[in-house]
Structure formats: C-alpha cells, structure tokens
C-alpha cells in the first residue's frame, strides 16, 4: 500500500508542477514564455502518464508516452518558427 501512496504523492507533485506552469502561461510577458511553459507541461504529462501506467500496472500507455513526446516537440518547433519568422512553413522562391 505504501507503494501506491508514494505514486499518488508523485502524481500530486506533478499536478502542482503543471499548475505552476499554467501560472506562467497565463502571466508570461512574452509569447516565448508561454511556449516554453507549454513544452514543460508536455514533459510533465509524459511523466504523469508513466506514473499512471505503473499505478494501473498496465503496458498500454507506453505508446502514448512516445506520442506525447513527439507531438510536444513538433508543436514547440512550429511555435518557435512562427515567433521567429512569422510563418511556419516557408514557400520556395
């Protein structure tokens, strides 16, 4: 039982971390702050998915970990390109 308690505590800590990132998303002065905090939320979501898969003792969520990682990276790079140049996909001239 102590094992599950520790896992639930870890989940609560991760939720607190996500809430702190949410504060930065709402308040962040520049848009780069918000994108950075969103990327950090994605990483925290990966960790919580891993903790949930231990808590429920299932292998079914391992695909999801990889998928959230890839989607978070692609979204971050797309937002960064948008901030930097104004377009995400450039046209060939």
């Amino acid at each position, binding site marked *: 039982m*102590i*094992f599950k308690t*520790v*896992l639930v*505590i*870890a*989940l609560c*800590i*991760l939720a*607190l*971390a*996500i*809430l*702190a*990132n949410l*504060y*930065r998303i709402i308040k962040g002065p*520049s*848009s*780069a*702050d918000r*994108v*950075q*905090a969103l*990327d*950090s939320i994605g*990483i*925290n979501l*990966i*960790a919580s998915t*891993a*903790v949930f*898969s*231990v808590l429920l003792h299932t*292998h079914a969520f*391992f*695909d999801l*970990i*990889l998928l959230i*990682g*890839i989607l*978070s*990276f692609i979204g*971050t*790079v797309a*937002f*960064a*390109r948008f*901030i*930097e140049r104004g377009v995400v996909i450039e046209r060939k*001239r």
Partner: protein
Amino acid sequence: MNASDEIGEVVGAVLILIGAIFSLISAIGIVRLPDVYTRSHAASKSSTLGVLCALLGTLLYFIISDGFFSIRLILGIFFVFLTAPVAAHVITRAAYRDKVPLAEQSVQDELKDYYRENEIVEVEVEDKAEAVNYQTK
C-alpha cells in the same frame, strides 16, 4: 517472486518520487526566475532530468516485477533526452530574435553585436537573392 516484487516497487517508487520532485523544482524555477532565458534554463534542464528519472523508474519497475522489457519506453527516454534541449534552444533563439529583453540585473549580452552585424549581412543577402530572382523573371 515476492522479494523481486518488493525490490521493483522500491526502485520504481524512489526513482518516480525523485523525478516528480525535480519537475516541481523546475516549475518553481519557471515561476520565480526573472526573464525568458533563465526560465528556459530551469525548464529545460531540470524538467528533462525529472522526466528521465520517472521514465527510468517505470522501466525498472516493469523489468524487475514483471520481467517485461519495453523497447517503446527506451525509445521514449531517448527521444525526450534528445529533443527537450533542442526545443529549449529553438524557443530561446526565437525569443532573442524577437527582441525579448534580458532581466535588469544581467550584466552582459555578448550576442548583441554579433546579431546586429549578422542581421545586416542577412538582409543584404536576401535582397540580392530577391534582385536576382526579379531579374530572371
């Protein structure tokens, strides 16, 4: 069987708790630090370490207690380790080019002169390319 179960539980719980605490420290850094660059420093490094600890704890837990070795989890660890610093770098560069100011207490900006020179060069090159393009049309 029971002993290996307990070892797996202890290893998994300790690593996952360490990872969660590292994530919380990174989030505190994101809230408290003064500008984009220091916040990006906090967000990328310690949050990456935290998620790596959590994923490693999950992997070891399933290896020790189930004997289940997940190659997808290894791929996830590798991918996060590879892409989180790259994402932080890209965001920080975008912020710098977007002229987000540094914190007031920072004393040195070595990129300033470099970027100013290079921006002029880049603009010239783009103009030339456009001119050439225009002539060929």
